[in-house]
């Protein structure tokens, strides 16, 4: 099991370090690219937890979709219109107070919660159960989410088309 521990700490370190870079990088494109590593580290942790489907969805949706969209947005604004986007640290003192309060609450909740612990064998794959649940128990929610995404797509298409009139 020691190997798994090493891998876990590796992924955790990747996630945290790149997360810090995301917040602290002076250049916004550097932030966006270190977000890639953050997503990657999180998906590695999902794999270690036995959530294989979730891990791949993490890469597919966040790295393949959202991150690319984000990068496109940043690059188009940064390079073509010559607007220098820089990120910096403002309001450091209130942020520290807020962060400390949040950490204290989180720590309190985590220690006082009665976590459900039972020995449970990690299933080899979660895809089949997830698929079955999606079309049986959560069918309505699933369909509603599909409609929501369709509405968003149609909305985006109509906004993009309006300029041509």
């Amino acid at each position, binding site marked *: 099991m020691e*190997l798994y521990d090493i891998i876990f700490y590796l992924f955790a370190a990747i996630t945290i370090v790149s997360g810090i870079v995301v917040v602290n990088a002076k*250049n916004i*494109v*550097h932030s966006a*690219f270190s977000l*890639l590593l953050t997503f990657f580290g999180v998906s590695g942790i999902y794999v270690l937890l036995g959530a*294989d*489907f979730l891990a*791949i*969805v993490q*890469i*597919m949706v966040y*790295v*393949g*979709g959202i*991150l*690319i969209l984000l*990068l*496109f947005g940043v*690059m188009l604004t940064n*390079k073509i219109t010559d607007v220098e986007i820089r990120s910096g640290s403002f309001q450091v003192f209130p942020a520290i107070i807020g962060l400390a309060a949040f950490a204290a609450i989180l720590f309190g909740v985590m220690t006082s919660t009665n976590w459900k612990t039972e020995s449970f064998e990690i299933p*080899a*794959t979660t*895809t089949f159960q997830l698929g079955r649940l999606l079309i049986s128990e959560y069918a309505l929610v699933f369909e509603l989410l599909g409609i929501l995404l369709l509405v968003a797509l149609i909305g985006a298409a109509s906004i993009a088309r309006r300029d041509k009139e």
Partner: protein
Amino acid sequence: MYNFLIDIFGSPVIAFFVAAALPLFLFILPYALIAVLAERKVSAHMQDRLGPMRTGYHGIFQTVADILKLIQKEDITANSIDRTLFNFAPYLVFIGSFAAFAVLPFSSFFVGSSIDIGLFYFLAISSLVVAGILMGGWSSNNKYSLLGAMRSVSQIISYEIPTAIVVLTMVMLTSTLNLDTITNQQTAYFWNWNILGGAATGIAKFLLIPLMFAAFIIIFISTLAEVNRTPFDIPEAESELVSGFFTEYTGMKFAMFFLAEYANMLAVSFLITVLFFGGYHSPFGYLGNSLGIEWLVPIEQGVWFATKGLTFVLVQMWLRWTLPRLRVDQLMTVCWKYLIPYSVAILLLVGFITLI
């Protein structure tokens, strides 16, 4: 395979690293050596030229000479580039294309990772290539590179949709995402291949054959566009953009991009092989089985897999020297107005057939 390596090295960690590195040394590097030369020779003969002839017999050592040249070249990094991202981008692109090989079953002895979401993983991990291309294009601080990267990424993202729909069709037909299981469903003879209706029997098989051919053509076109090959090489259109997102790269970093492109070609060819052409299974049965030599069968399977994959790579090269480049609007028309509606129609029809 993995257990066999543990037996040899006595440690699961070393065996793990060896198993992870094997596809690189067994398949990709020798393949890249051959493919680069093959492309030059194929193009030369298609245009009634001779191609490289000086290095060795009919120029067979040309690629080796090229590699020696690339290693010696100066690694130029211009002052105005973003150094960190510029240096990291080639490796990210290569990681993305190499990681796709992790789930491919090369032979029954060497399956890679037989995870139950292999197909999904294959599609997802290629997004690392997209991020790497954007990284390289942006950090070069060069308008041609940025334009090339933008074109490349929009093209890859658009053509991922028909690929994903065809893959979904195949998942519906085979009811698994595991590439090894898909391969084994197409065992025995070539009429069990998915392109010929898979293991279905009776009327369903005859209904499936035309649909499978159409699905195969769609996925071939869209994967061709995803690996940025002609006629879809708008991202690196030499006459417009110098050479696209890797204009500023020299020496070994350029070689990494080159290697990644060829690795990508091989990976998508292997994917098509697994989905439609029976993976590593022989179309005629095995020599090892009829002779009673058991260890020969996995080797034969590896040879069959490589042969099928390389056939598609050869078709990709052939197309490169046959067809002219598309315009950007034609590129998007092909994807959104033709490939996607047809692939959705195939998805519905195949779903209907598998139900009855």
